[in-house]
């Protein structure tokens, strides 16, 4: 795909002006890193704050009296448990229980939900949702992705940066809750969520205000000073989420991977009633798993990468889904699918790094947990 066919967020020019190294990410022209580089961006987000353009994410409105019942039927988590102003993590599953996508479900009201899905899968998701939707569902669905920019401000300083430009009392917003308010005079959804393992917020607004908000966050965060905010690219977003052991679609999650295999039993509510894939998931739960996601860290020099084979006692038994140096932990870590018997912490494994079997050990996840 040539560059001019790639989709651009409202902040594309801003990223380029900041020295962003632009790459094709799921059909989007996005910065993989800025001038500071992935390690500094990652560390700054852990110790101060990081700013992310996540406007490429997809937003789908579901509205009408049947909204909750409809979304409950296409996702694994229990939408009836949400209250107004609350969001939860969930998955769209197919009939086999495989994950079509992971998503956030926001409840604005009894008849109004917002689904936030991955960038590269937005069109697939909307087609999937549409194909399971009929007038009998008594709700409407709208792909509103182009109507939102989304900017994430993450890290220990995120709250005090954002609080300077909103009257919404941010301390009062609990984790995985949100509020509609005004940010720097712009109508916005303020959500206490993120993909970094840090405290922080994701702000949704009309794309015409993206640049104004972005620059305001950089200013207030002290961009340019030693411990100031840094804009963070996709590379840091990936290493941050991996340290926090959060899944990435296309790696830990996919159409042939079930929530149980991906350690997402906690968002899979079989008792809530029927939903797409429920039967298959109930059967898998009963029969037991063949593979399960586990975290590992390298015990010998070497970096595991996505797609590398995992060995136990010279037998190939698993696959690395994500592997990388962890800049904050200063270890080489990864996630891999393994037979459940080998997923206990302390299990020694070998990673095949370009023909060399290098030692690693299964460890508990998340690798990184912030101090509260």
């Amino acid at each position: 795909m040539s560059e001019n066919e790639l989709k651009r967020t409202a902040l594309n020019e801003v990223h380029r002006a900041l020295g962003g190294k632009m790459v094709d990410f799921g059909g989007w022209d996005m910065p993989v890193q800025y001038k500071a580089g992935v390690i500094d961006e990652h560390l700054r987000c852990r110790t101060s704050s990081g700013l992310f353009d996540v406007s490429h994410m997809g937003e789908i409105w579901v509205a009408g009296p049947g909204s909750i019942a409809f979304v409950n039927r296409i996702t694994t988590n229990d939408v009836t448990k949400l209250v107004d102003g609350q969001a939860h993590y969930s998955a769209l599953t197919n009939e086999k229980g495989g994950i079509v996508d992971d998503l956030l479900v926001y409840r604005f009201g009894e008849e109004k939900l917002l689904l936030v899905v991955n960038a590269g899968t937005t069109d697939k998701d909307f087609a999937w949702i549409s194909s399971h939707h009929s007038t009998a569902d008594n709700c409407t669905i709208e792909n509103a992705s182009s109507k939102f920019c989304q900017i994430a401000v993450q890290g220990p300083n995120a709250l005090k940066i954002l609080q300077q430009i909103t009257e919404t009392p941010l301390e009062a917003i609990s984790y995985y809750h949100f509020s509609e308010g005004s940010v720097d005079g712009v109508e916005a959804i303020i959500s206490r969520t993120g993909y970094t393992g840090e405290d922080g917020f994701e702000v949704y607004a009309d794309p015409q205000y993206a640049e104004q908000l972005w620059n305001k966050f950089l200013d207030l965060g002290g961009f340019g000073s030693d411990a100031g905010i840094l804009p963070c690219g996709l590379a840091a977003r990936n290493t941050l989420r991996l340290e926090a052991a959060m899944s990435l679609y296309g790696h830990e999650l996919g159409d042939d991977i079930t929530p149980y295999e991906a350690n997402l039993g906690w968002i899979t509510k079989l008792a809530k009633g029927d939903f797409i894939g429920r039967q298959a998931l109930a059967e898998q739960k009963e029969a037991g798993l063949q593979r399960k996601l586990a975290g590992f860290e390298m015990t010998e020099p070497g970096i595991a990468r996505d797609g590398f084979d995992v060995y136990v006692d010279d037998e190939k038994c698993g696959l690395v889904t994500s592997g990388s140096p962890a800049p904050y932990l200063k270890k080489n870590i990864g996630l891999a699918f393994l037979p459940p018997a080998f997923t206990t912490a302390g299990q020694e494994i070998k990673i095949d790094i370009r023909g060399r079997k290098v030692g690693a050990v299964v460890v508990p996840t998340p690798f990184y947990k912030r101090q509260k």
Partner: protein
Amino acid sequence: MSNIPENLRYSKDHEWIAVNGDVATIGITDYAQHSLGDVVYVDLPRVGDKFDTHESFGSVESVKAVSEIFTPLGGEVTEVNDGLNDAPESVNGDPYSAGWMIKMKMANSGEADALLSAAEYEEYLEASA
């Protein structure tokens, strides 16, 4: 603009070579380190290992990716930069000095003449940009 010291020779694989008698010191160029991003691990051969021209002698890993490094000329490894085990970031910060990787005793010192000059390497970078 990349830093391309005058006094070094270059390969199209973005290595620099400092020739001193029959010993060549080899590292990766400023352009290469910049394209890779933050280097976190450098895998180097052992002293005594022998390589032909354009053989993979190790790899450089950044946070995002791994790149093989190829010998710009044939010979025997006489020294490796162990300092990169503890400070792989030298490859980014100081690619032409602290970031050197290996020294080789050249099998055929005539090979060095076939390498690019600084001006030729600069031209090569511009042409492939």
